[in-house]
């Protein structure tokens, strides 16, 4: 049963100061009303996962936070600053980085150009040697065309390029989709390491088994609303509900 109370009172965050506050977020694609009042918080240093079925509104939530969706309403505060009316380039410059579901690797750019494409928006980004330490494959493929990489390598490149920018808040949209188990494991290790480095991560996942290895908290999205929220410690107790929500 959907817990409508969560829409008014977001699940209490576990650690750190509040970095992202989303209230009554609504979004439209043309005439289609996709988000119907999303509410949640993300605290500094956390990994928060949005779970939900296909078409529930998870990706639209990330895109709305990033300012990519043209028509949106409500309130999104990043570090206590309202960003609902800001354009996506300004939002990026405030320290939010987005890794899209389709990865967004540019075919006209080689791997090095793809990696160096996002401008550094503030100090504190990972230096290249640290990025190559995380993703050794990329170092060997710097001269290759971006889209010639394997799916896993493309995902690594998509994550790697936003780590350079100095953004402290990362939004990763289904980073494991379509990848082999061994690559999924590697992405999981990377997210865990980024969390240790102090990054805050908002993750969209359908694969909650993967999410459970990295997430601190979960929100469940259905029909453009947050219908439930719980911490990782409460995951086992909520497993039956989760299966119902996700239809697995």
């Amino acid at each position, binding site marked *: 049963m959907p817990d409508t109370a969560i829409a008014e009172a977001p699940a209490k965050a576990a650690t750190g100061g509040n970095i992202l506050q989303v209230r009554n977020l609504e979004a439209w694609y043309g005439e289609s009303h996709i988000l119907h009042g999303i509410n949640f918080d993300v605290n500094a240093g956390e990994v928060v996962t949005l779970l939900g079925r296909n078409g529930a509104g998870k990706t639209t939530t990330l895109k709305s936070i990033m300012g990519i969706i043209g028509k949106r309403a409500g309130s999104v505060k990043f570090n206590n600053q309202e960003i609902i009316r800001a354009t996506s*380039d300004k*939002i*990026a410059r405030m320290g939010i980085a*987005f890794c899209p579901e389709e990865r967004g690797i540019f075919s006209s*750019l080689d791997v090095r150009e793809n990696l*160096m494409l996002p401008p550094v928006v503030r100090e504190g980004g990972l230096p290249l040697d640290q990025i190559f330490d995380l993703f050794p494959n990329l170092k060997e493929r710097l001269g290759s065309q971006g889209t010639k990489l394997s799916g896993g390598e493309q995902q690594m490149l998509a994550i790697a390029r936003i780590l350079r920018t100095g953004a402290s808040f990362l939004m990763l949209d289904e980073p494991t989709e379509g990848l082999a188990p061994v690559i999924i494991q590697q992405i999981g290790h990377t997210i865990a390491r980024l969390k240790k480095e102090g990054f805050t991560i908002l993750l969209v996942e359908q694969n909650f088994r993967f999410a459970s290895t990295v997430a601190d908290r979960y929100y469940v999205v259905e029909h453009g609303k947050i219908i439930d929220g719980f911490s990782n410690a409460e995951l086992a107790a909520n497993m039956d509900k989760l299966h119902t929500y996700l239809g697995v």
Partner: protein
Amino acid sequence: MQALYAQLLVGLINGSFYALLSLGLAVIFGMLNIINFAHGALYMMGAFAAYFLLNLGGINYWWALLLAPIIVGIFGMILERTMLKFLTGLDHLYGLLLTFGIALIVQGVFQNYFGSSGLPYAIPDQLRGGMNLGFMFLPIYRGWVVVFSLVVCLGTWYLIEKTQLGAYLRAATENPTLVRAFGINVPRMITLTYGLGVGLAALAGVLSAPINQVRPLMGADLIIVVFAVVVIGGMGSIMGSIITGFALGVIEGLTKYFYPEASNTVVFVLMVLVLLVKPTGLTGRAA
């Protein structure tokens, strides 16, 4: 034999204008997805800007090479901000019709004030005269046009293919939304890119002024051939535009020597053949 070399030189000079103009069209198409039919009128405005700078401001050719592209480029950026940006996401036909309308208006205004005959623009003193190369006589100004155009074309290619700014441009051509979400002000970059493409057309206009005089319809005559060049090279391909521009100028020159009757149509015959065999052009991507 001297006549052959002379026609080759004429071909190279025409090729220089084709390359500069088609390069500008390729840059604009790549970034804005607009087939800029106003390009010929903007080329003409470059020549007129040089004419006004000289006759009203006493500003010489060398300064005009710098100032005319900037002035006309700013005019182009105003066009982009006030009209073209509203065509984002629409079918190519809208951009083509709008820019065609702009071309007609601009040409009409200039024709109203200056008639159809040419206004003289002198070759700068430093580039007068010629050199006897043994096998042919080379007018210095014409040699300058070829070399300078080639340098500008290669410089533009380098900017787009080998620099970080060029990487932004190429990436924004593929996925402007994501590039903007990386923190790059894409709308401003689009405006500047249109300004760059228009500036290249104006630069060609300045280079052309001492050779072809300054005429309101000078661009209208040229733009049809340039579009054929772009179609052959491939819409949106930077190096394709440069190589095809120079190559077709030379082919046109050679045709003038071997079979003059076909010299005005050879480019269009080639265009038809390329469209039949490879509709995206020799080096281009699908429009």
